[in-house]
């Protein structure tokens, strides 16, 4: 009972954000962190649950953004069509890529994911006829939300679009939770913890790594689509390596292999860099130091252990524990 009340209280707080936060800039940060939650939950599936380090995740995000942007600019598809198309398209790309590279897990896998990300950046930069290269694709708009019988709702205001992103984040969270709590999710963890044992039980590590990889990429694609329509502009800069680093920091410091941790990590590490905005070089140096120290000395992350310590168990939004 108290758990249900706690869940409702958290939801009410999240819904109240645009009513309390009147400053456009902070609202912007809330929206961006919501988009990151969607992407980072996807990264956590492959990194946290299956235990394969993918450095292609920011590229999947950017590919989703480009898919949605191209469909909008060339075919006038609105975000309602563009978002599922981006998720499906990027998921399919991950399926093809995974078919090639998931058979060689380990160092080669990690390196090829970077190579893939760079290749996609080259395509976005050099296929000028399609992507306009460095100039990027401007002019994306947010769609109208037309409800049958109720007329149409304008979601272009930040305070309205916030709810779209919040809904997306909640749906992504529930989907991931359903996935990791299912028998598939238990096999993810088994593959991570003991691959030979999994194989000896007839559980194909390749197949389960593939499921996580594709599902994670689809979430990144959907997040990319939200981002493209929200910002209204995509460019090859989206493929920069710094994005994947930030997403990894969100997952690692949030607590990989949990869902609440990386989700809170996404919010925390969207707001934190903005506080360090004054010194941009020092910001990346600080980030890198945090990444090194956290990886070496805090393998469970910071956010999730903190939550586990502070919030009584019976209040907690039940979270699938990492085995």
């Amino acid at each position, binding site marked *: 009972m108290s758990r249900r009340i706690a869940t409702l209280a958290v939801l009410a707080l999240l819904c109240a954000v645009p009513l309390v936060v009147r400053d456009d800039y902070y609202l912007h940060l809330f929206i961006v962190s919501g988009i990151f939650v969607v992407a980072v939950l996807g990264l956590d599936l492959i990194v946290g649950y299956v*235990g394969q380090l993918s450095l292609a995740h920011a590229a999947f995000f950017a590919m989703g953004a480009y898919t949605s942007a191209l469909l909008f600019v060339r075919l006038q598809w609105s975000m309602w069509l563009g978002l599922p198309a981006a998720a499906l398209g990027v998921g399919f790309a991950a399926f093809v890529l995974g078919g090639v590279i998931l*058979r*060689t897990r380990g160092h*080669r896998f990690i390196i090829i994911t970077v190579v893939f990300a760079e290749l996609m950046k080259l395509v976005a930069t050099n296929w000028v006829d399609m992507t306009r290269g460095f100039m990027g694709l401007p002019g994306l708009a947010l769609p109208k939300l037309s409800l049958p019988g109720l007329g149409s709702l304008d979601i272009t205001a930040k305070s309205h679009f916030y709810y779209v992103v919040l809904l997306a984040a909640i749906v992504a969270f529930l989907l991931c939770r359903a996935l990791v709590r299912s028998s598939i999710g238990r096999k993810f963890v088994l593959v991570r913890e003991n691959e030979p044992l999994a194989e000896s039980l007839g559980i194909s590590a390749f197949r389960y790594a593939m499921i996580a990889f594709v599902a994670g990429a689809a979430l990144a694609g959907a997040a990319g689509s939200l981002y493209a329509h929200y910002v209204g502009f995509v460019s090859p800069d989206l493929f920069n390596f710094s994005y994947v680093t930030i997403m990894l920091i969100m997952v690692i410091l949030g607590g990989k292999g949990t869902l609440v941790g990386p989700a809170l990590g996404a919010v925390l590490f969207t707001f934190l860099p903005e506080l360090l905005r004054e010194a941009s070089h020092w910001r990346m*140096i600080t980030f890198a*130091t945090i*990444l*090194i120290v956290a*990886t*070496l000395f805090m393998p469970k992350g910071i956010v999730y252990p903190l939550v586990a310590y502070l919030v009584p168990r019976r209040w907690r939004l039940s979270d699938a524990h990492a085995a």
Partner: protein
Amino acid sequence: MSASLTILAQHLLNGVLIGCAYALIAMGLTMIFGVMNIANFAHGEFYMLGGFVAFYLVSLMGLNYFAALPVAVAAVVALAIILQHAIFRRLREAPMMTTTLVTIGLSIFLEHVALLLWGPQPQSIPTPFPTKPLSFFGVYTTPLYLFCMAVTAALIVVGHVVIRRTRMGKAMRATFQNKEASALVGIRIDRIYAYAFAFGAALAAAAGAVLGGFIPVEPATGGIVTLKAFIVVILGGMGSFVGAIVGGLMLGLAEALGAGYMPTGWKDAIGFFAVILVLLFRPEGLFRRV
């Protein structure tokens, strides 16, 4: 020689220097990978730092160019020894995810420290060589280019001899093949780790210092260099020195031809496609482990 042949020869010559540099960097990377089982994402930063330290010594402190090169390499090796003691020593038995994330963090750290120290502008190391081009049968080159090519080629030979002919190289190769057995016959594994790391850093820094007179260095160079070196290592077979040398030269030549004959901007894609093809059809690399 016909005009098209001359152009081909020009492109190939342009590729040799880059190829030698790739080979040098990849040799160290493959050594660190083989001995320490670490995919060092910070390896390209040693190249970048080698170039920047040499630039600093020559242009800002007025040191003689030929003296600056070894001093720059020594400085980067000193840094590598510190890093090995502070960080890499702890990664010995760590899982792959940990080692990779730490080296990625280190790479970002070093890149942004360089950005803070030297700014984002690409810098060329001033050299004492005359800039007048030399022509052989219509193929143009410069004295600087020939010097760089000679030095990198000589360093490849030196690296190869160290690995193949010295006691240290033998101990490294033994550790490479079987850590426990090497420890049993009295090889100090922790020392081999330190030497392998310093050796790899030295080769990359030397490549950076030498090429810095020819290709401007900037803080962001390190990431690209790391990626190219990884491509070479996968092409040649992870842990193969011959593969690193041949793979480096091949990638350098292929990119030079690509730059000459393909639309601009796509040259870097050659290595990426090559890696994916190799992975599909010959995942152990073109050369087996040596």
